[in-house]
């Protein structure tokens, strides 16, 4: 059974010039203990989608339709207080700005225990013991429990964030570009740490990144987003070996690879469309080299060998 099941989700930003369709009619589901990657250019709605999974949307953003079922229960109509109790406890998040996401005047131990005490009625001692365990789990010595964030390196801050996020044993973890801004060696360590954490806590996760290689390494399935829509959703290996949607092809073609023959990287001509007034039909059509008149109509989602592709020509 899927842990989280998103159907026809629409999230619009109500701007003065009309609604910006940041997330428009997308659907996906994630099986237990699996990781879904969300990739796409900046501004394509990856983070917005992820934040909507915990209903953390600031005005003028608004979910205007669809459902997000977490363990069979729709979180879209939930009241603020109800969803707040889910956040951190059941659904948690590791965000990208770890460098500033820790409270500068509280020790790391204090920040983890606060998190535990907020969601569970345990004693302070129990919470403290769990905080130490949590630190060990993410690869920080529990002797650092009384350290302040400024005494940590960038990688350690990201580890600490992961320790806080998973302190209450959530079932579902959103990883919003957790390795952005870290050098490759530290990135590697963080990825390994996250993988261990996921196994240790049997986590289901969604992994957002624009780094295709990181996604390839960590995710079971990948959804390619473009201008607020999912273009293709597929298992990772098939997507990288044989992208079906023209946009997936272009995106993968635009990314350098260490293996294989040296080749010229291909960029995608044009710019992403306005989300207030998107092109009719397929949103990628204006930049697509195979576009034809039929592309002015909304493409159906074709299912091919368990892969879901939104393109008219995918069968050809």
């Amino acid at each position: 059974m899927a842990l989280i099941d998103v159907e026809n989700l629409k999230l619009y930003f109500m701007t003065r010039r009309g609604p910006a369709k940041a997330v428009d009619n997308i659907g996906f589901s994630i099986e237990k203990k699996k990781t879904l990657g969300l990739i796409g250019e900046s501004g394509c709605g990856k983070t917005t989608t992820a934040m909507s999974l915990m209903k953390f949307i600031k005005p003028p953003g608004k979910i205007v339709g669809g459902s997000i079922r977490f363990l069979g229960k729709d979180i879209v109509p939930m009241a603020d207080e109800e969803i707040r109790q889910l956040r951190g406890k059941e659904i948690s998040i590791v965000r990208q700005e770890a460098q500033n996401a820790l409270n500068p005047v509280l020790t790391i131990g204090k920040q983890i225990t606060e998190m535990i005490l907020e969601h569970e009625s345990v004693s302070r001692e129990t919470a403290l013991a769990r905080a130490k365990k949590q630190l060990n789990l993410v690869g920080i010595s529990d002797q650092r429990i009384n350290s302040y964030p400024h005494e940590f390196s960038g990688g350690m801050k990201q580890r600490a964030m992961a320790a806080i996020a998973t302190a209450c044993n959530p079932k579902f973890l959103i990883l919003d570009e957790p390795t952005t801004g870290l050098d490759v060696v530290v990135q590697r360590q963080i990825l390994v740490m996250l993988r261990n954490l996921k196994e240790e806590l049997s986590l289901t996760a969604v992994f957002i990144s624009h780094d295709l290689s990181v996604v390839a390494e960590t995710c079971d399935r990948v959804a390619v987003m473009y201008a607020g829509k999912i273009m293709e959703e597929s298992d990772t290996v098939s997507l990288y070996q044989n992208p079906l949607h023209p946009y997936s092809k272009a995106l993968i073609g635009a990314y350098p690879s260490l293996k294989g023959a040296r080749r010229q990287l291909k960029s995608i001509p044009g710019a992403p469309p306005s989300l207030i007034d998107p092109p009719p039909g397929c949103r990628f059509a204006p930049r697509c080299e195979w576009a034809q008149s039929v592309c002015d109509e909304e493409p159906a989602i074709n299912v091919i060998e368990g892969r879901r592709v939104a393109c008219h020509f995918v069968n050809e």
Partner: protein
Amino acid sequence: MSQHLSKTNKLKEFLHLLLSHPMGFFGVIIITIFFIMAIFAPFLGTVDPAASGEVDNLLMPPSSQFWFGTDDLARDIWSQTIYGSRISLTIGFVAALITVFSGTFIGLIAGYYGKFLDEVLMRIVDFFMMLPELPLMIVLAAVLGPSMWNIILVVSLVSWPTTARVVRSQVLSLKERPFVESSRCIGASNFQLMFAEILPNVVPLMFAQAVLMITEAIYAEAVLSFLGLGDPISISWGMMLHSVFESGVISESYWWVIPPIVSIVTLIVSFSLLGTAVSDVLEPGYKEKKGY
């Protein structure tokens, strides 16, 4: 290794840092001296400061019997100066405590919730800020009778808005910081965000405000007492200045004027020094900058 410090060690470390800060050192020393004066007043070679002496001893200049001389009722000025520190310190601390706690609370609520609540609270703040201190004091003295508590009441009433405003503006910026958002993201309640996340960031500001309020309250006591609005029975530095002014011998009796003035100035300056030192030391990273 700073990582392994327990709570008591933290306090020790804080005191150590404070005392190695030059301003903190002088502030702490002078304030401690004043505290000792206030607490051990009866044992410091004093006589009852309110008791009038022999007629022969009126307006005596400093001598071995009267260290600081006597006033026009032959009361010992040394004793008055010592006992006066009690009033100043009490008023300073009580008023600062009331002001800083109420001001911080209001500022935190207004800044955090914003919108309508902020508007309402800030208009209330404006109202209290505009209250004229002296007329209010005169009215209260007339209605309630002059006393130390009325001075505390008036000082608190007119100074909490300053703290509220300062804290509010700090909270406005703090609540937009990523760490608040990321705590909210993982399910922190409004209460937790306000008191566990934002409030600790405001603590250095609270200390700075507290020191400011202490100095302001001491100063206000001196001014109000000098104008004859203080408690006429109590012995305070402001009352001493009031008496010397009333007596009409101010130009001849320097020994009566100098002690209260020097005391007020010294105490206020030392609190300012302490305030600067405390906010320096509480700044995260100060320890590392100083190489600890």
